[in-house]
């Protein structure tokens, strides 16, 4: 969450609760509901690392609140994060390892593994379809996240087909 908070602070200084609201507004339902405690803990660590600094702002009838702002070091880290290409999905995943090793174990043959995995992916796809139909079209980032997940699943299913053709 560190870099997400840095990105929000790059726009304007804010206190913890404002950051929680900003996450909710920016991502809609595409971000697991941010926990306020986790936000404060993360801000504390960012401060310790010199990536943000805090100033106390007096409030008339409540305790002071801490408003955080980005330091030059924080901005540098954020720029590096944004400019770097992002790693794609890991391909040598758990299923791949099972598929390669299964014939040695005598527990399941590869066809059975492929069939079971296909059903699993299809049921995930079905969930995503349900989710998409329940997501209001105005929640653009959520729609994009679901569509992205669907395209990844389609690729996984295409790859299962390739495994089936080559290993059968």
């Amino acid at each position, binding site marked *: 969450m560190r870099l997400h908070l840095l990105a929000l602070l790059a726009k304007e200084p804010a206190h913890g609760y404002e950051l929680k609201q900003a996450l909710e507004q920016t*991502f*809609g*339902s*595409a*971000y*697991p*509901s941010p926990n306020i405690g986790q936000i404060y803990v993360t801000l504390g660590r960012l401060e310790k690392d010199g990536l943000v600094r805090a100033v106390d702002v007096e409030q008339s009838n409540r305790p002071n609140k801490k408003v955080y702002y980005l330091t030059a070091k924080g901005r540098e880290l954020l720029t590096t994060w944004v400019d770097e290409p992002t790693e794609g999905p890991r391909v040598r995943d758990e299923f791949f390892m099972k598929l390669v090793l299964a014939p040695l174990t005598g527990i399941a043959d590869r*066809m059975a593994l492929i*069939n079971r995995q*296909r*059903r699993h*992916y*299809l*049921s*995930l*796809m*079905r*969930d*995503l*379809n*349900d*989710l998409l139909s329940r*997501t209001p079209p105005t*929640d653009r980032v*959520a729609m994009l*996240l*679901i569509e992205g*997940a*669907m395209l*990844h*699943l*389609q690729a996984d*299913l295409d790859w299962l*087909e390739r495994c*089936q*053709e080559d290993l*059968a």
Partner: protein
Amino acid sequence: MTPVLKTVRLVKIYQDGAVPVPAVRGVDLQVEPGEFVAIMGPSGSGKSTLVHMLGGLDTRTSGEIWLDDHRVDTLSESAWALLRRKKIGFVFQFFNLVANMTVGDNVELPALLAGASPKVARERRESLLGALNLGERADAAPAQLSGGEQQRVALARALANQPSVLLADEPTGNLDSRNTRDVLRLLGDVHKEGQTIVMVTHDARVASLADRVVSLFDGEIADDGRIARRRTGTVGEVIDLR
């Protein structure tokens, strides 16, 4: 319950070239009333051949095909054609609408061919076009419609005779994602009303709308199972889902 469709050791071998090519190699399939079955598999796995045989568009080499408890693979071509008009609706990837007839006439034609009175055929045409949101396009020529609209017309035509089974061969294969969504919603709607559907598709998004997925491989059924439904909450959890 009597299955709507049943095949017994169904085989298709193409003998056109020098070497016979087996496309379907002994398929036993049973489709219950109201089921929505997706047929998937790599290209060349026999899925289109299978669904064409089910619809009588291709002849079988051996085995049996039963439709509504009647054996149909032994029927003469004309008897098959007659039965097909009444009991089977077909949707293809490339719509196959009659180009020089209006949208409305395309939808009305199957009912007339099946022997419905002009009045009944007209009523059905109007209710179908209305349901598919095409009422205002009835007098247009198919070519004036977008791909998605043409596919909706093809769907209306296929449903015109309230068929026992709707067969679809890559019905969204030629559509962009928005039109795909429209056509899928319609398929989902008619399925909810009890329509039995057998659909060939390579698109997992489309297949996942079905109750059951049959996976073909090399002309045989490699897997046949229901798609489990799980429940996910917010979109945020989708990230964690994987």
